[in-house]
């Protein structure tokens, strides 16, 4: 259906998901299936002196028990797949089950397989492990100090890598009129997808094939890595991600658990299922963020920003997870100058091992860390020089005529109209009126504040050449195949692996729009290595820019071939055929026409095809984008702080985002809503806390505060559309903008409200007590 792009059609995946018909990994039932459970270390750091599995092994219903020693030499070590260049990275050994040492609470120690999941769980309590507890370190700055407990002998000082980039020299800072310096801690977050991780593996003795269903954002990457771990040829391994209930980055990594399930299924020649419970998800699924940052922002008294420099220490946890090293380096460091014309920027990052759950990508991955520090610094700079923070932003925003814009780290920003988004947001917010009301309310002892963030986001991860240059151990192109069936119905195969983003709908819209057929005639298949040639998955807001780009080209190839056949049928030259609204017609003779379905049928019947044209109708594309894409926008938050208790109430939230082109406004809006909620979660409520012996004390939803719907006002969203020249659809990403922009917006709003108290910093999350104490200090210090 031509024109379906841009329409807010309902998500086609929702009827099955909201009526309980979704097929998640844990829903898979296979004959003869057995169930796995994993014994996890209760200690953050300990030597495993002895493991006695006899009682568990002889427990009725237990099929097998494996320890790390049992797997040595049989199951490979977990690799790290992002190795930032020139960072002296230490990819230390990471066995699927600990052999002689555990390094975080949750580290796997033994695997039990039993005839049902209840027996498997019971048997965990029958394994007796003698631990010799070692001193633990959870804070990355402590971990770098001399004498700190050492996690890996091959990583002295616990430093996993040290990465530097940029052109901001001491000299630039020395000659600056104003330099604002500040420390920020980006707290640790737990991604908490609605569906915890799960895996089911089935070995087929007849041909030696193995099928692994698992909660993956990138099944082809899982296959690629697991084939190595299992010592199994890639073509004998099939990885399937069925319905996946969210990931937020935490289902990118290849985990020990999935490898163990696959190993056990092959070893036992029986299907094995493992499902993580929520407590395991807290402990054993990757966490996000956890940076200490020291930032310097230099500029002139007139508000011209000149240089930014960051020293960051990132907590990598006990091991380097699959994509982890790329997060606090490439995805963070290259974008610290943000949407501003700051000519000099420098980043110096240490990635450090600690006795905590490994960290990896979490919605936004690196870019929220960069945007947060920059936007906080811009507000502080504005305060320092006595300028309105919005005016300071406006003065430094890259202007429309500067695109393509090269930032100091060498990135080429594709397109943008940053001030348009800013103006639209301020207009909606009625910024000037808010400032007046703020003064009035202060006189009555009420503290309201406004935060404004202007951001740019690097997303649409591709192209592969850059992936290679930045150490990503894979490509970042994408595949698409459009298979037109004889009746004109279409199956689309995409190498992206949506798990909540709605591509079953938006990708069908792309194809429907091009082919002029109804969306209902199109099925989108994803997440199965046996059905899709290759793909790199869904993360980094890449599905639509890269996967959608591939799909556009593949669809064009279908049209190109169909046109040849149509010309033959209509007995005109190919150049005289037009394809309009699902119908091929001869130029100037609208009566000579053939529908898309008629042409398709002829392609398959092949009774009368033009010379040199093969039967059937399919289009395949392996598309590598020209460059990254850069979504941008302006977010505004208005808050009120309870002067008695420090509680923060979010009064209004306005988001103006530019994702290049909006394919489905309802889905785009949903992505923005979800992103904002997660970002505000970081600002106000969420935070993973370890005690000093390495116990995760926010271990359940009783203590780890996920945002609730009633914490929010209605989020006001608007889109501007500035197409990207970097891909055929002109699209940019929209899945992470909310998370990237909302955290500093809300924190800046709270700090704005607290200006009368002279408060410059409150550590996230801005828990009421922290806000209250900041106000108390302000009151005491006059």
């Amino acid at each position: 259906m031509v024109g379906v792009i841009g329409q807010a059609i309902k998500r086609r995946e929702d009827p099955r998901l909201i009526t309980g018909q979704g097929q998640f990994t844990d829903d898979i039932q296979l004959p003869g299936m057995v169930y796995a459970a994993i014994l996890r270390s209760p200690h953050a750091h300990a030597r495993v002196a002895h493991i006695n599995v006899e009682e568990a092994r002889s427990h009725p219903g237990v099929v097998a028990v494996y320890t790390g020693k049992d797997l040595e030499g049989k199951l490979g070590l977990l690799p790290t797949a992002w190795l930032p260049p020139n960072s002296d990275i230490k990819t230390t050994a990471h066995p699927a089950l600990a052999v002689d040492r555990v390094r975080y609470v949750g580290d796997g120690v033994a695997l039990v397989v039993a005839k049902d999941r209840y027996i498997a769980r019971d048997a965990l309590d029958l394994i007796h492990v003698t631990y010799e507890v070692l001193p633990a370190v959870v804070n990355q700055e402590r971990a770098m100090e001399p004498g700190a407990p050492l996690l890996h002998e091959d990583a002295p000082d616990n430093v996993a890598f040290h990465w530097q980039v940029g052109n901001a020299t001491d000299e630039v800072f020395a000659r600056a009129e104003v330099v604002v310096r500040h420390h920020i801690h980006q707290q640790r977050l737990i991604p908490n997808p609605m569906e915890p991780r799960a895996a089911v593996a089935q070995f087929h003795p007849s041909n030696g094939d193995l099928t692994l269903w698992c909660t993956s954002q990138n099944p082809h990457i899982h296959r690629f890595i697991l084939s190595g771990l299992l010592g199994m040829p890639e073509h004998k391994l099939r990885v399937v991600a069925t319905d996946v209930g969210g990931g937020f980055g935490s289902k990118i990594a290849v985990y020990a658990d999935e490898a163990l399930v696959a190993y056990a299924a092959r070893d036992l020649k029986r299907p094995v299922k493992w499902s993580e419970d929520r407590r395991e998800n807290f402990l054993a699924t990757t966490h996000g963020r956890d940076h200490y940052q020291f930032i310097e922002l230099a500029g002139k008294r007139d508000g011209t920003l000149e240089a930014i420099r960051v020293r960051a220490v990132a907590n990598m946890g006990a091991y380097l997870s699959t994509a982890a090293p790329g997060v606090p380096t490439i995805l963070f460091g290259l974008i610290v100058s943000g949407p501003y014309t700051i000519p000099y920027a420098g980043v110096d990052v240490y990635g450090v091992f600690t006795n905590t759950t490994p960290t990896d990508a979490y919605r936004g991955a690196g870019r929220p860390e960069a945007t947060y520090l920059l936007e906080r610094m811009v507000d502080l700079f504005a305060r320092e020089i006595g300028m309105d923070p919005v005016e300071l932003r406006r003065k430094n925003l890259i202007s429309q005529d500067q695109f393509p814009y090269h930032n100091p780290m060498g990135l080429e920003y594709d397109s943008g109209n940053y001030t348009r988004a800013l103006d639209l947001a301020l207009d909606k917010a009625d910024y000037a009126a808010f400032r007046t009301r703020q003064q009035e309310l202060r006189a009555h002892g009420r503290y309201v504040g406004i935060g404004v963030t202007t951001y740019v986001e690097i997303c649409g991860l591709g192209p592969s050449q850059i992936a290679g240059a930045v150490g990503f151990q894979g490509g970042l192109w994408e595949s698409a195949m459009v298979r037109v069936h004889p009746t004109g119905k279409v199956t689309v195969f995409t190498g992206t692996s949506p798990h909540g983003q709605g591509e079953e709908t938006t990708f069908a819209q792309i194809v429907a729009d091009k082919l002029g057929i109804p969306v209902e005639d199109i099925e989108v298949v994803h997440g199965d290595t046996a059905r899709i040639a290759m793909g790199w998955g869904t993360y980094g807001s890449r599905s639509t820019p890269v996967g959608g780009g591939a799909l556009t080209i593949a669809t064009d190839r279908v049209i190109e071939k169909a046109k040849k056949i149509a010309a033959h049928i209509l007995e005109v030259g190919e150049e005289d055929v037009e394809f309009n609204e699902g119908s091929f017609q001869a130029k100037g003779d609208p009566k000579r026409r053939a529908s898309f379905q008629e042409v398709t049928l002829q392609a398959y019947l092949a009774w009368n095809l033009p010379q040199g044209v093969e039967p059937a109708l399919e289009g395949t594309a392996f598309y590598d984008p020209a460059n990254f894409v850069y979504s941008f926008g302006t977010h505004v938050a208005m808050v009120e702080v309870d002067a008695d208790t420090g509680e923060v109430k979010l009064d209004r939230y306005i988001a103006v985002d530019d994702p290049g082109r909006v394919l489905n406004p309802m889905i785009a809006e949903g992505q923005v809503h979800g992103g904002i909620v997660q970002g505000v979660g970081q600002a106000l409520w969420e935070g993973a806390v370890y005690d000093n012996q390495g116990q995760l004390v926010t271990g359940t939803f009783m203590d780890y505060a996920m945002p609730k719907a009633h914490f929010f006002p209605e989020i006001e969203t608007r889109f501007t559309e500035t197409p990207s020249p970097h891909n055929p659809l002109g699209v940019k990403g929209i899945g992470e903008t909310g998370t990237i922009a909302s955290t500093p917006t809300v924190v800046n709003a709270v700090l704005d409200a607290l200006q009368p108290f002279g408060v410059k910093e409150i550590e996230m999350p801005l828990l009421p007590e922290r806000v209250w104490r900041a106000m108390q200090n302000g009151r005491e210090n006059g």
Partner: protein
Amino acid sequence: MIPNAFAFERVNTVEAALDRLGADGEAKLLAGGHSLLPLMKMRLSSPSKLIDISGIDALRGVRREEGRIIIGALTPHREVAVHPLVQAHLPALAQAAAQIGDLQVRNRGTLGGNLAHADPSSDLPAVALAYDAELTVVTAEGSELLPVDGFFLAPLTTAMPEGGILTQVSFVIPPEGAHSVYEKYSHPASGYAVVGVAAVVALTSGRVSHIRVGITGAGDAAYRATAVEEALLDQVWSRERVQAASRHADENGGIGEDLFASEAYRRHLCQVYTRRALERLG
């Protein structure tokens, strides 16, 4: 989240429940299950047997008896929250019950289960204290009436005799003209009370003739803020007096701390929320 194995039996009478409890010292009663089952799934609690009393209809319902409202222990929170007798005579209880968990929890969780479990952050203990509740506990030896004052001893610990069953809770209807309110500061994660204040106040000719302040969440157990009550009883009601009296709100409880709120902040919240509750009543 899989509990240890346990036996399960459903009973239809209090006598049968007592009998099963007496026979197995490691058995636990199951009412709504919303406090017990999560603990079992974590394996923090591993009863040998669950005695399901949820079908004992005699323990469900709300009725008025002279100056009291009597509520069966198995009455679910939602029924408590919307019951006309509760709304008319015990508005703070209706408000508190309406804020427990979410709708699903309120439909399953019960008044008696909540009070007997004695979670230190639970809402209802504060309200029970403010309405001078009496709890009827039945044991093999017979029935006894426990005053709410002194019932909540420590986290998850009450004055209930071993093997006893809480069958009903009786709340005193406050004097004519009294107002009552429940003010809560919810934990953003759990929704439990960081501090919850239930207050009942009656004025006679401008003077405080009746006052009760129950506080939950702040300490190891819910407590009555008698220092606040004493500061206001028989006094002429004024904004200044309420403010001054509220500063005593943290004096009667063993104020605790956790990750979310330090002891000092909790003491402060006790005072602020007590003041806010009282200010709504004057």
